[in-house]
């Protein structure tokens, strides 16, 4: 879908990386374990102790990042709240499930059930903001966030809305980490998470989690990070072909040469990374970039890709740790983000400097 006038005007995030500024991205933390949790802020700075205890962690994170992003964009009330989440409020789902199994369906309290549905995130943000506009939630695996983003862009293109808060939230509970581990998601040993992509050793990556909020606006302002040019989602095209990407770019009067940075969802998992590496010859090794060695892998890590790309394009540079070549990139007019999930779900997002 080609977009008319859509800008990223505000961002907010909580991640396993404590500092997501351009300087922080130049000096990221490295981890030595296959499971890293968020560097959470002090929730009491944001919520009164009663509310903080009642709310689930993922909701607290989502509300905080939404607040940061809206302030960043100087938007008081967005026209829409749309979230993507692979698994929703897993912690509460597990608690209710566990209690139901342990107590054989007796003596159950509703609190965890109430918070267990995936749409709790969007609706809690809406309740907090008093936002009665368009509200939606998408839960589609590794492209949950892109599904939410497309919906926001559809509403903006229809001119039904001028601003949208789009969020991507996932938490990695200890139990879900075990479950995904059974499916081969994680390496058993991690020496240096930052080096996980450059020194490939078989399948698996390391687990992360995070919350990202992005404020879209149809009007460019002084704080605008980037212009969203185009987006595409595909299911089982048999892997994205070079021709497919050329066609996508042609629709925007661009060629692969115009792309300064090709930001991929590489994460050190050999079968996953192979799909992206096929494009190395098209874009050149010095344009290949990645972010999951910083953020870890989880269903909405692609939201971080967009956040990082927005930060980089605003500062007209991509710090060295993000580039596969290890050299920072100082010419950043166009960034193309490519993400796939199990080589079935594919997404492309094209960004340009404002």
């Amino acid at each position: 879908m080609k977009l008319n006038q859509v800008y990223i005007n505000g961002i907010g995030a909580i991640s396993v990386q404590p500092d997501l500024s351009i300087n922080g991205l130049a000096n990221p933390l490295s981890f030595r374990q296959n499971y890293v949790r968020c560097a959470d802020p002090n929730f009491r700075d944001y919520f009164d102790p009663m509310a903080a205890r009642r709310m689930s962690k993922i909701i607290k994170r989502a509300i905080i990042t939404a607040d940061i992003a809206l302030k960043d964009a100087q938007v008081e009330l967005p026209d829409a709240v749309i979230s993507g989440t692979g698994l929703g409020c897993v912690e509460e789902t597990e608690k209710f499930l566990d209690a139901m199994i342990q107590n054989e369906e007796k003596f159950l309290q509703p609190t965890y059930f109430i918070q267990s549905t995936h749409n709790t995130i969007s609706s809690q943000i809406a309740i907090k903001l008093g936002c009665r506009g368009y509200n939606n939630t998408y839960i589609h695996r590794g492209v949950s966030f892109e599904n939410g983003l497309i919906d926001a862009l559809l509403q903006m293109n229809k001119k039904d809305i001028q601003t949208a808060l789009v969020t991507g939230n996932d938490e990695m509970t200890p139990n879900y980490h075990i479950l995904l581990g059974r499916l081969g998601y994680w390496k058993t040993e991690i020496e240096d998470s930052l080096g996980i992509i450059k020194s490939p050793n078989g399948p698996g990556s390391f687990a992360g989690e995070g919350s990202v909020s992005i404020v879209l606006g149809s009007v460019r302002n002084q704080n605008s990070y980037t212009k969203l040019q185009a987006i595409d989602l595909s299911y089982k095209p048999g892997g994205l072909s070079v021709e497919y990407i050329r066609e996508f770019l042609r629709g925007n009067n661009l060629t692969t040469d115009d792309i300064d940075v090709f930001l991929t969802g590489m994460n050190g998992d050999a079968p996953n990374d192979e799909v992206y590496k096929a494009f190395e010859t098209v874009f050149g090794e010095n344009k290949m970039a990645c972010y999951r060695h910083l953020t870890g892998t989880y269903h909405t890590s692609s939201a971080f890709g967009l956040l990082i790309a927005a930060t980089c394009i605003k500062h007209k540079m991509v710090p060295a740790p993000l580039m596969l070549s290890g050299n920072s990139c100082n010419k950043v007019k166009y960034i193309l983000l490519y993400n796939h999930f199990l080589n079935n779900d594919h997404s492309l997002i094209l960004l340009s400097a404002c």
Partner: protein
Amino acid sequence: MNCRILVSGMGIVSGIGNNTDETLASLLETRTAIGELRHLNTIHRLPCAEVRLSDSEMKAMLGIPENAVYTRTALLAIVATREALKMSCIEKGIPKRIAFINGTTVGGMEKSELYYTDFLTNDNFNEYIAAHDCGACTEIIADYFECFSYVSTPSTACSSAANAIMLGADLIRAGIVDIAVAGGTECITRFHLNGFNSLMILDKQVCRPFDETRAGLNLGEGAAYLVLESEETARLRGISAICELSGYGNACDAYHQTASSPEGIGASLAMKKALASAHLQPAEIGYINAHGTGTPNNDESEGNAIVHVFGEKPPFVSSTKSLTGHTTSAAGGVEAVISILAMKHGFIPANYNFGEPMKSLPFEPVKAKIEPAEINHVLSNSFGFGGNNSSLIFSKTDN
């Protein structure tokens, strides 16, 4: 951009029927499916509306091997999608970009709640870990048909399927896909049966939507999908339309996670948005298929919203949840199909089991089936936890 969106096919499975013909027959005879649970293994003796088919029967119907990994949610969806695709003459290989948009909330929970201890301690049921998340459910359904190149999973609790239908229309209008098969699916799980039970909103008898003595809802299960396409695509394919999706609206009540605002602010907004997008006046709506769950809170809130939008003498209103049970994420699809059947066959389905009018409302729902009834435009409401309110309007194509 603003092309007409036609409905060229539909498929449904619920307690009141395994396809559209059976559903129509049950509606015309006001036959409820609410009764004792037969498939779900639970300690609770709460009335529910299960789909009659067992998993094995559905697998046999669909040519799926008995030992293949399919959750009940996915099987229900495949039964309904198969009917919708057949009606719309869509088969593998047609040169169109087709989306499958599947509203669901429980996904593979029905198996996860059985094997959860195994998930944590051994590798015996890993294939069900992979099938647990809702997106996996959508892809399992899509893969059965091998004709979808775009998939998406909206999840807004009990309005999921309505939002799926809205997304389908928006994707067609934006030129992203040619055809969208959109709706929702949900099987009854112990997880949400116990969840609703812990909230004390399940009636121990057959529910009574819009009745003064209403005491909660009954869970149902099912799946239903519409095939949506532009007028142009339908013309080129030589397909005649059943009706038109003429308007839709989504709004958030922004009031409480599990309760609706007493005055139904979000519900009013959703209905008003739908009317505006359909360029219709309230008086032009011939029938409102209400969300009408039978909980004290919903029916009060929705009733007030209907009065706010349509006045004290609104068009015919009925809730069909005392027939189908509350099919949660599938409800928007199930009730879209019911609304379309009512319009097409010219009748108003009964608000079964209604007895005593609500003191706070100036209108009563339709107590017994009305036939014939001329409906040119029908509005269907779906409201979800968290205040996710959506309204759809379907219109006859010859208007």
